[in-house]
């Protein structure tokens, strides 16, 4: 009976605001939003693929990409998905201390990724690849910049959750809120899985 009681609280949180479907409206809204984000990033990735060979006025992608460095950044973002899911798992157990720890770790890993992106961008600019240097550079900076903005928004959401937790307003019954922020964070990771392979690892044109 005690076991049954303990499973009721998180379950109740998951079922919040169901409108006849038995599922949460908030979670459904996030999934619809993520579905629409596929179209946004699909457009940006396609634009990059179309313009990646148009670099006549500047460095070529194959000459400028630093694969070992980007690989480390990718690994950092991938591991932030693990810490995010551990944060949710801790909150589902009512373990507030570990929830805070993993939320903060996720935000720090995300910040590390953004730091790496800022370093990459400044290195490219120093090597002569500005935003308006060529159609390739415009498409590249727009795509990866948009992704970076998404990661930054995710970090703001994670820090908001962390501060809420410190104030005592993030409790076990709010696990759905953490799950929804987690969905956004994992989506940003999934987009990078795609960008890393298609933009960086698939051989790019050289000058």
């Amino acid at each position, binding site marked *: 009976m005690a*076991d*049954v009681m303990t*499973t*009721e609280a*998180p*379950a*109740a949180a*998951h*079922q919040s605001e*169901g409108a006849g*479907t*038995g*599922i949460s409206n908030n*979670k*459904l809204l996030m*999934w*619809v939003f*993520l*579905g*629409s*984000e*596929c*179209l946004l*990033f*699909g*457009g940006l*990735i*396609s634009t990059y*693929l*179309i313009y990646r*060979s148009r670099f006549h006025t500047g460095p070529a992608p194959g000459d400028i990409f630093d*694969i*070992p460095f980007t*690989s480390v950044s990718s*690994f950092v973002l*991938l*591991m932030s*998905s*693990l810490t*995010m*899911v*551990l944060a*949710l*798992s801790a909150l*589902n157990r009512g373990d507030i201390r570990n929830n805070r720890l993993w939320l903060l770790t996720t935000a720090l890993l995300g910040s590390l990724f953004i730091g790496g992106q800022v370093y990459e961008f400044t290195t490219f600019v120093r090597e002569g690849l500005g935003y308006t240097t060529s159609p390739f550079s415009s498409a590249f900076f727009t795509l990866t910049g948009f992704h970076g903005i998404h990661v930054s928004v995710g970090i703001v959401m994670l820090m908001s959750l962390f501060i809420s937790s410190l104030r005592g307003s993030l409790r076990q019954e709010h696990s759905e809120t953490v*799950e929804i922020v*987690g*969905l956004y964070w*994992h989506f940003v*990771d*999934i987009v990078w*899985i*795609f960008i*890393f*392979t*298609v933009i960086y*690892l*698939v*051989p790019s*044109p050289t000058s």
Partner: protein
Amino acid sequence: MSTTDIAQSGDTSHDGGHGDEGHEHPSDAKYIQIAAILGVLTALEVSTYFVNIGPVLIPTLMVMMGVKFFLVAAWFMHLRFDSSLFTKFFVGGLVLATGVYMIALTAFEFWTKG
């Protein structure tokens, strides 16, 4: 089916059930196991930059990317355990985006001229 019913029947979502209501998530150990697989796949992807594997390079990269994509969506985003309606919305957006931009890339002769 409520969580109480699930607990009593032993039919938890750990077994891959698709309850539309409350659901149980995998254990931390399982999440760490999935992350380890993702890490190994990333290392294999990166190794293709240093080792020439010839014409199978792009298909190999696409398969590994697809597996990573699936693992994150199914396990970390809980699509494997959640309502199938979420999967439909997400896959719907994904299929629409893929279709639209495949047509766009074809119109720009990406496949023939690169």
